[in-house]
């Protein structure tokens, strides 16, 4: 992963609708994707993760409106482009050649009445008009074989392929022009777990070969931790935390991330009761004041209900950000949110070293837990049984 930035989203605000009824779907979001990086965007439905990315690429459909911020793309050659200033023709050139897209359901993302060949080559024809028909065909064959599909499938229609094959075709399509960024919006959610794994492994290989960056959108944080370099977590339209994947897993800094992590039952170890997060995600039209997560947060204190925390650097390293007052010097963070980070210089070794000690999610916790002070009394008040959660 190089530090070379590729796609920079700054303070992006996206509304659905306009005027007094507008719903603020994304508020003030900052995301930076670097060359060759796999950046995971995690969040539940309605958290605005897809909205953010689709708006940044100007593909968000009505009634979506961008109401603030800036999005810049730094192509490999040429100067940076302000995507919010660009018109259709400027975007047309950038689309697919720089930024391509894989959506959740390949059944819907492939045109049902056109052959795989047409759909694999149409972008080539549009962007590289000098290519001959034979060239395009050869490229289509190459692309299909790259994702492990026999080229005799070129004449097939989407309905003749299995779900996994369709998603592979989508990936081949997305790589047709060797883009810098591939946006993947829940690319494997609709697939069975084995197929999902196969495709993820293939994706990893392709990324290693071709070096594109991936913006991977999913609600499945446990999956993301396995495949992403860095993870940004969204809640109610806001980014609440961003960190390298292993650091986020071992030592989350935002209570929502902590809650999400403890919502995935582990595959190993003793079975212990887990609590998830009480309550349900807020209605975007009636957001709570202050920090949007505070009604569900067991660590919330007075300030949280009043003022929204900014997304700010937490701790020593620059690549950890969180939007939480607990981390911004207003008092020591509770133990669960102050776990020691794995050594990031040797991520693999560190992960290996901690595999028995495990994460913060109710499993055996690692060493030094600072004695909680200040906050915990309130925290205790908020430690409610799960059932209470649904009174939203």
């Amino acid at each position, binding site marked *: 992963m190089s530090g070379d930035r590729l796609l920079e989203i700054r303070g992006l605000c996206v509304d659905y609708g306009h005027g007094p009824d507008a719903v603020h779907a994304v508020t003030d979001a900052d995301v930076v994707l670097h060359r060759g990086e796999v950046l995971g965007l995690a969040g*539940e*439905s309605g958290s605005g993760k897809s909205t953010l990315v689709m708006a940044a690429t100007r593909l968000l459909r009505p009634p979506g409106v961008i109401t603030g911020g800036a999005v810049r793309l730094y192509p490999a050659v040429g100067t940076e482009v302000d995507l919010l200033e660009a018109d259709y023709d400027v975007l047309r050139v950038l689309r697919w050649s720089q930024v391509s897209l894989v959506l959740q359901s390949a059944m819907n993302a492939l045109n049902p009445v056109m052959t795989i060949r047409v759909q694999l080559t149409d972008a080539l024809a549009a962007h590289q008009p000098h290519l001959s028909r034979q060239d395009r065909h050869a490229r289509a064959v190459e692309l299909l074989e790259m994702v492990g599909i026999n080229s005799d499938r070129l004449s097939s229609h989407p309905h003749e392929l*299995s779900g*996994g094959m369709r998603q592979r075709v989508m990936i081949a399509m997305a790589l047709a022009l060797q883009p810098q960024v591939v946006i993947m919006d829940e690319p494997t959610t609709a697939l*069975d*777990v*084995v*197929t*999902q*794994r*196969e495709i993820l*492994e293939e994706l990893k290989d392709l990324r290693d070969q071709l070096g594109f960056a991936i913006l991977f959108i999913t*609600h*499945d*944080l*446990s*999956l993301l*931790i*396995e495949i992403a370099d860095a993870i940004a977590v969204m809640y109610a339209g806001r980014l609440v935390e961003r960190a390298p994947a292993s650091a986020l*897993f071992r030592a989350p800094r935002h209570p929502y991330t902590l*809650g*999400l*992590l*403890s*919502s*995935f*039952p*582990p*595959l*190993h*170890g003793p*079975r212990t*009761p*887990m*609590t*998830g*997060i*009480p*309550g*349900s*995600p807020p209605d975007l039209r009636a957001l709570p004041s202050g920090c949007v997560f505070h009604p*569900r947060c067991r660590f919330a204190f007075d300030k949280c209900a009043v003022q929204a925390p900014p997304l700010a650097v937490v701790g020593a390293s620059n690549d950890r950000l969180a939007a939480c007052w607990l981390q911004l010097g207003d008092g020591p963070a509770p133990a669960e949110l102050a776990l020691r980070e794995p050594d990031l210089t040797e991520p693999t070794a560190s*992960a*290996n070293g901690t*595999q028995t000690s*495990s*994460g913060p999610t109710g499993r055996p916790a690692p060493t030094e837990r600072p004695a909680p002070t200040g906050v915990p009394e309130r925290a205790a008040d908020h430690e409610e*049984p*799960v*059932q*209470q*959660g*649904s*009174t*939203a």
Partner: protein
Amino acid sequence: MTTPTLDAPDMTATLLEARGLTKHFPVHGAVRGAGRRVARRRGSGPVVHAVDDVSLALRAARVTAVVGESGSGKSTLARLLAGLITPTAGELLLDGRAMARSRRRRLDYAKTVQMVLQDPFASLNPIHDVHYHLSRPFKVHGLARSGADLDGKIAAVLERVALTPADAYLHKYPHELSGGQRQRVAIARALAVQPRVLLADEPVSMLDVSIRLGVLNLLADLRDSEQLAILYITHDIASARYLADTIIVMYAGQEVESGPAVHVTDTPAHPYTQLLLSAAPDPERVTAVTLRGAGAPPSAVAPPSGCRFRLRCPHAMPICAERVPPAFPAGDGHVSACWLLDAGPKSPAVTTRAGTPEPPAVSSCQLVRPITGEDAPDLGEER
């Protein structure tokens, strides 16, 4: 499989038992768009083998999880157990008695066996409010003596699913509730008749991640407090491990493995279960995943002979194509329909997926990490 599924030292009463349950759906000449279906005569033509010869027993105060990929027949199984569809073969025993088709018996059955469906956005009728949804079971089964009695009972059942105060929910329409609240209303409706068996078909897969555990914990709580026998259908093996006492793994309409939940997930004996576990998301995974048995499930219309997993199985042997494997014991009430276990406890099933040969899982209860190595040794000699 004729061998009893559960040999566990589990002495709670068996409430609902399925023996050799089978469901074949006729294949319709359905063509999307223009065509209409052609009526097919019974007994002729190809069939979809949705569920083939599945036996299971649901016991009081126990959660039995059925795990499998889409198309494995797990939802069909739940619908068979709920009486929504009639089996092609096999029988369903409620308290040891076979189910009859009369309206009277059907109602009795409904009073004992209830079901919660997958999608809370679809399982509540958008035009009726919560009060209506919850009043119907009481009215259908004549359980309320008066209006006041009914209201009291509805409030009580809402309280049991932690939707309090009940008044705040009674007159809400489904679209005014969140996904988790809707699923709780659906569970409340199922609980209204005070059933003893609850079938839950992927009850949390459509819910937001952060509220899934709340619903799972509610189910666990009902199991303990009401002695409910719960069937938990899921494709998420981790949640099955979290909630269930027993796990049944289904593949292509058949039961391939079953046993105590932790035992099955920690020492899977069937190659398919091993595949499922290696594919499941696991943040704690350290080394690269090696899938053993990639590919797709077989055609449900013409399933392969013998073991249906054999075409994907890394250990397939000649016998796998010849005979359907029976359920072989794998220790502690854990059984697996795999010929590898025929040889006894020196089965290579577990070691195949471990980098270092580990003690055979079947004879050991120690927790073996399912994936600890990259390359499985060549099993040629061991076969």
